[in-house]
């Protein structure tokens, strides 16, 4: 399985050379998410240019690039968070299991239940720890009884590696936790809905190294069940947690491929310059 995925990724990378127009390819086997010719405009300003990228199932795809390169914008296209921004227009296709997420008939509520998101700054609701995790299952009607809901909350917190720290104080405010704990709480909140994809927008940028290590460990565990797409500023983090890396620059996808390949043998000089710290 991993070898075929790498192969697929290599083929895709070869297709996306910055000089050549991106070649239309059918969604690759094993690709959970598949973006084709995604353009994003903020008013008249174009933020993303013809992004085509496959994000494989049960793996971590990291999006790297200098600030303002559009990687977060791309991430927010996947669960249509850009819908909430006035004047933002998205063209192209992003397929989730072959189904276009921008389909008019698809309610973003359903999409976001399938595609969870973790933000840069931990943003727990100003409610209790229990309520934070229970909120998603509750609004989607996932649990039919209180005991079932309690079970979901417990499992989610366990999977987020937070249970041992908070099991005694579930009624305490979620905002009273430390930054790292808050971020894991937010991850527990995302997985409580049982999504298929988890998007993470620089999840560790507000955390200290120890909390970061915990989150990275968690990402590595979650990878066995979910398709994870992570935006990160830290190339070391991308190298540590991801199996596939995509390098964005000035709104364009410069290069994408298996992480070890990108970091050891980048094809594009800009990628090389960026990962060796010459700019960004």
């Amino acid at each position: 399985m991993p070898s075929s995925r790498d192969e697929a990724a290599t083929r895709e990378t070869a297709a996306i050379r910055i000089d050549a127009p991106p070649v239309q390819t059918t969604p690759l086997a094993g690709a959970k998410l598949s973006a084709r010719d995604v353009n994003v405009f903020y008013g008249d300003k174009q933020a993303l240019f013809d992004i085509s990228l496959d994000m494989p199932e049960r793996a971590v795809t990291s999006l790297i690039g200098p600030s303002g390169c559009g990687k977060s914008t791309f991430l927010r296209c996947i669960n249509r968070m850009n819908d909430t921004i006035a004047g933002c227009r998205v063209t192209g296709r992003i397929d989730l299991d072959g189904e276009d997420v921008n389909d008019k008939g698809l309610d973003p509520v359903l999409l976001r239940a399938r595609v969870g998101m973790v933000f840069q700054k931990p943003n727990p609701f100003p409610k209790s720890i229990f309520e934070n995790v229970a909120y998603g299952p509750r609004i989607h009607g996932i649990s039919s009884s209180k005991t079932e809901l309690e079970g979901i909350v417990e499992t989610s917190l366990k999977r987020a590696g937070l249970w041992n720290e908070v099991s005694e104080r579930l009624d305490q405010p979620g905002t009273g936790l430390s930054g790292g704990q808050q971020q894991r709480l937010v991850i527990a909140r995302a997985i409580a809905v049982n999504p298929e994809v988890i998007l993470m927008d620089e999840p560790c940028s507000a955390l200290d190294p120890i909390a970061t290590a915990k989150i990275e460990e968690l990402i590595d565990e979650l990878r066995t069940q979910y398709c994870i797409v992570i935006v990160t500023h830290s190339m070391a983090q991308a190298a540590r947690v991801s199996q596939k890396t995509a390098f964005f620059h000035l709104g364009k996808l410069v290069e994408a491929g298996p992480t070890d390949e990108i970091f050891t043998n980048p094809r594009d000089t800009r990628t090389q310059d960026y990962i060796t710290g010459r700019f960004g």
Partner: protein
Amino acid sequence: MTDAAIPPTAAGAKDLRSLVQSRLKARQAQEARFKFYGQLAIVLALSFLVVLLGRIIHQGASTFFDYRMSVAVYIDPAKVQRDDVASANFDLLVAEAVMVKLGEKDDEYGETSAKAMELLSNDLGFQLLSQVRDDPSLIGKTVTVTGPVRADAALYYKGQIKRSTPQGDRKLDDRQLAWLDRIKSMGMVSGGFNTQFLTRSDSTEPEQAGVLGAVVGSAMMLLVTAVLAVPIGMLAATYLEEFAPKNRWTDIIEVNINNLAAVPSIVYGLLGLAVFINWLHVPRSSPLLGGLVLALMALPTVIIATRAALKAVPPSIREAALGVGASKTQTVFHHVLPLAMPGVMTGAILSLAHALGETAPLLMIGMVSFVPGVPQAVTEAATVLPVQVFIWENASERAFHERTAGAIIVLLIFMIVMNLAAILLRRRFERRW
């Protein structure tokens, strides 16, 4: 980045020190000046407040103290007809009872009894009348009634009518003052807390006038205002802020709401007159009508405050809710609005406090009328505290002026109680995490 690239500063080091030093004094002086101005402003503001409150309390405190008189009155069967109780002059009966105590006899023109009646509240006569009407067997017996002395007599007891004033310039003559001194020394008159001021409504006689009707009217009117303005304002603001598309129409609406908040309140009175009275036939001078007009007036403030509170909710909360798949409505009602609630409450309370003290629009809709009773329903004629203040301030009797200040004190207490309730309410909504 080599050392050579940095311009040499060694020579300038001393200069910098002296440069900073030379300006340091000016900077510190500037800071000290600013602090002084700030403190001066606070002292000025506080002194204005002290003068204002001091003046009101000084003038109004005596309202809460009054002199009551107890008189034992013999109900003379010769003067009170069993089958026509109401035709008897009970005021005269009371006056005669007092005159007997004073050892005075009425002259043939009734001048002495007229002078005596000027000192006694006709409340005593009313009490006698109603007692005898309820129980005619009292005729021929002695009944003791207790009631306030006439307002002018009370003013003499309170030292506001002075014996040193020439007789022609005061309302009571020397003989009446002597009588007042004597009945006080006989123990017929006692001073105490003026409960009637709080348990009675407006009256033509100052000593019988109270604020209860106005307090109840104000409370009813505010209730109508709150029930209308707060939910409508919150819904309008929530829609505009969270749901409405941002385009030219919503811009126009926003500008107009801001303009409405600055419209003079009397204009709302005109609007109320035209729309609510002439067109919708809402009962004139009722708390319902006043509440409707003030709700219109309070709406823009509530909307602006709610929008500001919604804007202050961090976008990360909205993203968090949307991110787990909450719909727009769920996001707003589960997360954004609860977080904005303290700000919304503050705005609502401010606009209600403003409405409580509003007088001008109520004058336009006929609330400035003499209402001697307590309103039983929002559709009944009523008066409200600020208008009561206005009415009493315009009265000619001197005793009403002290009542004006007394009513202002009640109004201020009403406001303080309301604000306290608001703070408590806000605490409940506020999540301290």
